[in-house]
């Protein structure tokens, strides 16, 4: 294992110090491992708390700031944060209008946020929850823990963050979150595994000439593996299941081509070109796009594609100003 770290056990602690030092718009509660806005939101607005395992940067901490999250809880590597962290974050950001928990659909994350919401409710904070579940690689969701929350989380945090910033009330913010959840789908693939520092070796073995289709964001193996194909073939293998799952024909969409951490941008742009060609062919109009590393899986090579139906309301919220380490425009 070759990594830019000091001690394996200090990776997250040290990274949080670096995040705080690098971004004047956030502060870090190191004891609870919570990243917060340096300047809290005005009273009377809904606050947004998210969080998850570390190793997906810039998600979630890099999306704390004006127009997106109010706080993000950093868990251990690929491991959900704990209820006490979430509770600390929730109490710290509540501006009197309630708090929305944005949770990626994983068993641990859902359980921990559930416990945190129970505690917060006992303390009189109004908490609502949206569980993001957009990964079409998980086919038979009746017999699994349900679809994983992956790339759509980035788009949802941006759009819902704008709705909260506008001053919409908790019910209205939840309605926007549900709309994004319903209209978004993702699919990912890996060229290599990732190496969790504490494990010291790749999570799974992937021969030099093979790829894994339908991966999540935690180095968990995907649904199947096969000989590696061209970018054009791979784009088709990612876009087809999405279009098959939800009818996007005739819709305007926001598209994200996301890198898993170790894929060069030139390959992501190349993939975007292939994805766009497939969408053109399918009669899907790209209204906005995002290409880059937004929800990663440590040093995994590979990419994911996310599509979101975008009507006027969604596009308006997408274009609204945002000022975070991960996304910044309109200011």
């Amino acid at each position, binding site marked *: 294992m070759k990594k830019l770290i000091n001690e394996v056990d200090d990776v997250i602690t040290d990274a949080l110090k670096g995040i705080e030092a690098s971004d004047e718009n956030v502060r870090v509660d190191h004891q609870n491992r919570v990243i917060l806005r340096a300047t809290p939101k005005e009273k009377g607005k809904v606050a947004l708390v998210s969080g998850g395992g570390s190793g997906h940067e810039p998600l979630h901490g890099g999306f704390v700031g004006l127009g997106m999250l109010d706080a993000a809880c950093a868990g251990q590597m690929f491991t959900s944060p*704990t*209820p006490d962290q979430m509770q600390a974050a929730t109490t710290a950001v509540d501006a009197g209008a309630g708090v929305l928990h944005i949770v990626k659909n*994983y068993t641990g994350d859902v359980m921990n946020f559930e416990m945190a919401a129970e505690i917060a409710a006992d303390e009189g904070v109004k908490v609502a929850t949206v569980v993001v579940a957009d990964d079409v690689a998980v086919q038979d969701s009746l017999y699994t823990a349900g679809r994983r929350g992956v790339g759509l989380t980035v788009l949802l945090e941006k759009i819902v963050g704008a709705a909260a910033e506008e001053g919409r009330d908790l019910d209205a913010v939840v309605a926007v979150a549900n709309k994004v959840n319903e209209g978004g789908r993702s699919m990912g693939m890996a060229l290599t595994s990732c190496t969790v520092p*504490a494990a010291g070796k790749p999570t799974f073995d992937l021969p030099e000439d093979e790829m894994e289709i339908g991966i999540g964001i935690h*180095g*968990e193996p995907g649904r199947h593996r096969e000989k590696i194909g061209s970018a054009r073939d791979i784009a088709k293998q990612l876009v087809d299941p999405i279009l098959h799952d939800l009818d996007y024909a005739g819709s305007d969409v926001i598209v994200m081509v996301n890198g898993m951490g170790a894929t060069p941008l030139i390959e992501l742009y190349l993939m975007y070109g292939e994805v766009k060609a497939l969408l053109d062919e399918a009669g899907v109009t790209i209204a906005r796009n995002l290409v880059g590393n937004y929800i990663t899986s440590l040093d995994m090579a590979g990419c994911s594609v996310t599509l979101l139906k975008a009507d006027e309301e969604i596009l308006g919220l997408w274009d609204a100003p945002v000022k975070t380490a991960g996304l910044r425009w309109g200011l």
Partner: protein
Amino acid sequence: MTDNVSFKQLVAWLHEFGTLVNQNKSYLTELDSAIGDADHGANMARGMTSVLNLVDADGADGVGTLFKKAGMTLVSSVGGASGPLYGTFFMKFGTSTGAADQLTPEQLAAALRAGLDGVLARGKAELGDKTMVDAMVPAVEAMEKAFGEGESLAAGTAAAAEAARQGREATIEMLARKGRASYLGERSVGHQDPGATSTAYLFEALAASVDKA
């Protein structure tokens, strides 16, 4: 039945469980690499180390307080799914025993049943889903049956440990329906569940601690 579980034995149980988890940290992580996300060993070891630090510093508690604290500590130090599940197990165990300073076999079985019910309610997994429940349900049932037939404390906890081991083995052929392993579908078959494996350690530790008297 005359043989009760002493406070000392229950503390020894936590120590023994912590030792087994620490000794098998890499093995648990290896199992989790195959069908999960390669962190079960590290997470449980971190959690049990926190619990044992607290137990050592805090020897004067009754059984209820001891296990409620252990559960809270696991919830706040483990994360993932294991934190809430093992945390809930110990918290419900502690709620069931109350302030007792020793447990009759029936009280022990009732406390384990309460812990199991907590795990089922929190995790919503069923028998056969390829989770810790597949080791925990047979273990608790075996102990209840043994005590119901008038078996000794040692025999009842040994039966539970054996049932947990068999339950753990049975997960190998199961298709995962809960947790991250469920995303693999058919590919989860042939792998032993890491959660059922750590649960088998939990009951192995209990039998060993009771045996030490």
